[in-house]
């Protein structure tokens, strides 16, 4: 075979006619530039699946916050109750978390670093509604989970069934669940009875009211007297009609039917699902019935809960009542009621027919955590220690452990400028918590929740739907969504 190099001028694809020397240089330069650009372009396609930690950060705006405190700790602190004899300053490492409450994260990690100065943290913001999906996909793809896993109560039944949690009730953690308030126990365990997380704080909820409106229409803004005036929802509706007439329809009792209903449905502790049946009649009739009554009486507004208009309504002073948990002031009232701080607009009272537990987030250790003892140190600090409880108190939250309150009774107290002189913390601990009836969780609760929302929207929209028709629609909906259950 004879080989010869094809002279460049005869290469078919090349149409340039240039000086030979310059020609060769141009051609190679072009080739290398094109190859380089093509490689860069191909590499950009791999951005989304880079290093494990980055997979999560690509989905949301990443905030990596590292807190290190290497100053000498001058403040005398208690040594943590740990099995190991290691001193706090000997604990080193980095803990990762995915969460939606940066204020909580910063407060607790700063307080933790005062005692454990050599521990770093990495935080990735995640919407709480996306948590189940993110954990699922990380597990399925085998990518890294955070060391400390948060779990919000809405999706907790499912999240706790994922095979990603260290059982905190077992060795080496040996957490005693009797250390937290009793009513929390059912929502801290999975179906096999393992404790998968400890509540960051308690989330008891009563009913907040605008003191100015209560004074104007009920003649009093005292929570005790108001609770006596409104012992039942029927009494609430009667009073609501009076308010509507006095105000010529300008003042409402609540911002919306769905908003009221998400409070009312939690007052019943009948489990929604038991074995293979859905307790529709026993568990859901009352909240549907009240929704139709509220609508027919015209005492509630039409704002969609959690919408921008709903948030803004807290500063407008046209809606007298709202469900109020420990977190409501920080997330809902304070950002939207700008004059409330100086005028102490709000009061907290017991809701008709009982107060509830509303929300809640647990902290647990994931199986892929690199330094589980360190993660356990943080969780213990944040959830059951007295120092942790003090840090929580600074952001208006109450620890879920009983012991800190016995050590330091001032931890019960929360003074919130928006609530004037009322000690909301004491109200939550002494009045709300002892009487909370909590419904047992089930993995399919979220589907029932969604169906209830759908029926409530239908009730809101169509005045011809009464309780019977609404329950019929709900039954049909539940039978389509959950065909494996019997609807009773």
């Amino acid at each position, binding site marked *: *075979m*004879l*080989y*010869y190099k*094809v002279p460049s001028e*005869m*290469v*078919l694809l090349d149409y340039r006619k240039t000086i030979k020397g310059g020609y060769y240089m141009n051609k190679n330069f072009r*080739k290398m530039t*094109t*190859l380089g650009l*093509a*490689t860069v372009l*191909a590499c950009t*396609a791999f951005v989304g699946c880079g290093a494990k930690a980055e997979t999560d950060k690509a989905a949301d705006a990443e905030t990596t916050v590292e807190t290190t405190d290497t100053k000498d700790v001058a403040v005398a602190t208690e040594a943590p109750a740990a099995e190991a004899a290691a001193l706090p300053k000997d604990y080193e490492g980095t803990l990762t978390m995915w969460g939606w409450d940066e204020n909580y994260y910063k407060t607790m990690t700063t307080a933790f670093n005062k005692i454990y100065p050599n521990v770093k943290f990495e935080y990735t913001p995640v919407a709480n*509604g996306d948590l*189940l*999906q993110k954990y*699922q*996909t990380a*597990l*399925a793809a085998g990518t890294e989970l955070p060391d400390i896993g948060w779990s919000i109560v809405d999706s907790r039944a*499912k999240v706790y*069934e*994922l*095979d990603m949690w260290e059982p905190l009730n077992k060795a080496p953690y040996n957490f005693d669940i009797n250390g937290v308030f009793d009513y929390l126990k059912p929502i801290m365990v999975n179906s096999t009875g393992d404790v998968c997380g400890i509540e960051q704080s308690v989330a008891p909820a009563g009913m907040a009211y605008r003191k100015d409106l209560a004074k104007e229409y009920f003649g009093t803004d005292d929570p005790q007297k108001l609770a006596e005036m409104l012992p039942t929802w029927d009494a609430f509706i009667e009073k609501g009609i009076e308010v509507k007439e006095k105000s010529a329809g300008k003042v409402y009792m609540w911002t919306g039917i*769905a*908003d009221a209903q*998400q409070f009312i449905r939690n007052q019943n502790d009948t489990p929604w699902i038991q074995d293979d049946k859905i307790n529709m009649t026993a568990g859901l009739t009352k909240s549907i019935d009240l929704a139709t009554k509220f609508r027919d009486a015209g005492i509630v*507004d*039409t*704002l*969609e*809960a*959690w*919408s*921008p*208009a709903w948030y*803004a309504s807290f500063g407008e002073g046209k809606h007298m009542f709202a469900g109020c948990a420990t977190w409501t002031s920080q997330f809902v009232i304070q950002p939207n009621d700008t004059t409330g701080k100086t005028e102490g607009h709000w009061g907290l009272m017991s809701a008709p027919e009982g107060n509830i537990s509303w929300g809640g987030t647990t902290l647990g250790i994931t199986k892929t955590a690199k330094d589980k003892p360190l993660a356990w140190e943080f969780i213990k600090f944040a959830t059951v220690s007295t120092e942790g409880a003090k840090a929580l108190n600074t952001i208006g939250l109450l620890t879920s452990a009983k012991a800190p309150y016995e050590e330091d009774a001032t931890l019960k107290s929360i003074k919130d400028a928006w609530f004037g002189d009322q000690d909301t913390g004491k109200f939550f601990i002494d009045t709300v918590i002892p009487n909370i009836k909590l419904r047992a969780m089930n*993995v399919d609760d*979220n*589907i029932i929740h*969604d169906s209830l*929302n*759908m029926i409530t*929207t*239908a009730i*809101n*929209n169509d005045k011809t739907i009464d309780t019977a028709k609404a329950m019929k629609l709900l039954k049909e909906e539940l039978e*389509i*969504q959950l*065909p494996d259950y019997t609807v009773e």
Partner: protein
Amino acid sequence: MTTSLQDKIGLKDKTGLKVKKSINKWPYIFLIPYFVFYLAFFVYPTIYSFVISLTNWDSLKGVDKRHFVGLVNFIKLFTRDKLFYLSLKNTMMFMVIYIPILIVGGLLLAVLLYKLQKGSRIFQTINVLPYITTPVAIGIIFAFLFDRSTGIINNLLINLGVLTEGINWLGDGTMARIVVILLIVWKNMGYYLLIYLAGLSTVPEEVTEAAYVDGANDRQIFFKITVPLLRPITAFLVITSIISGFQLFDEPYLLFSNTASSIVGGPARSCLTSMIYFFDQTFKSSTRLGYGAAVAYGLFIVVLIVSLIVAKVINKGDE
């Protein structure tokens, strides 16, 4: 005598001996990254998804408890799943309404802009801007606009005297569908305009000029010359619209997922499309990855059948 071409590509040298053609490696080097990417991120997941659809994989039970169950998921999907059929019905209803609006509207706009002497670029840009805006922003803004109590649309209509009370746009099934269709039409009109503008430039001017000379008016030229000559483009747009229409996800999902009390698929599930249903089954309301994959493949089968039918109808029209 060898041709100059053969000289140039060196098949035969001047002595007549065969020459080994040196294989140019560069095209292959440039193509390999694309093919690796294509195989890794398209072909493999497509095949693996089908494998998943034949299992009973549930995230809650874990990968270890995953078993091959054959076509059980598909049987359940096609015989017992009412929501799947509801989602297909909703999707097709949207498509049947918005695709003709987009095709006709895009064509009319293109014809008007084509004739515009000045300022056609500005109008083109304005019309294409919604198409390049991110769907997330559009969903949130439309949710604000159409809010029952504080939305600008209701306030405007009340101030103009058209309404006495705000319409519950996002709380009523029918109204919610209208909002979704408005959103889709507003967003995508620019794309159809661009394609038709490009197509209009292929219509030979001599034909239209000859028609003018023969006494045809604008309407006759539009219907007898322009539209028939744009038939291949219309066919392309219809088929691609149908395929992308079945994948409708962004607009209805983002419109109705802003709040914590939002319902999957909007009020009365009127805007539950097939892709939203798939996403919800796999990652949101339930965690059954096997069944979710079966939903995706069930949708694929439906899209395939519909596309084949539409293509056949269009080709028959051509004949």
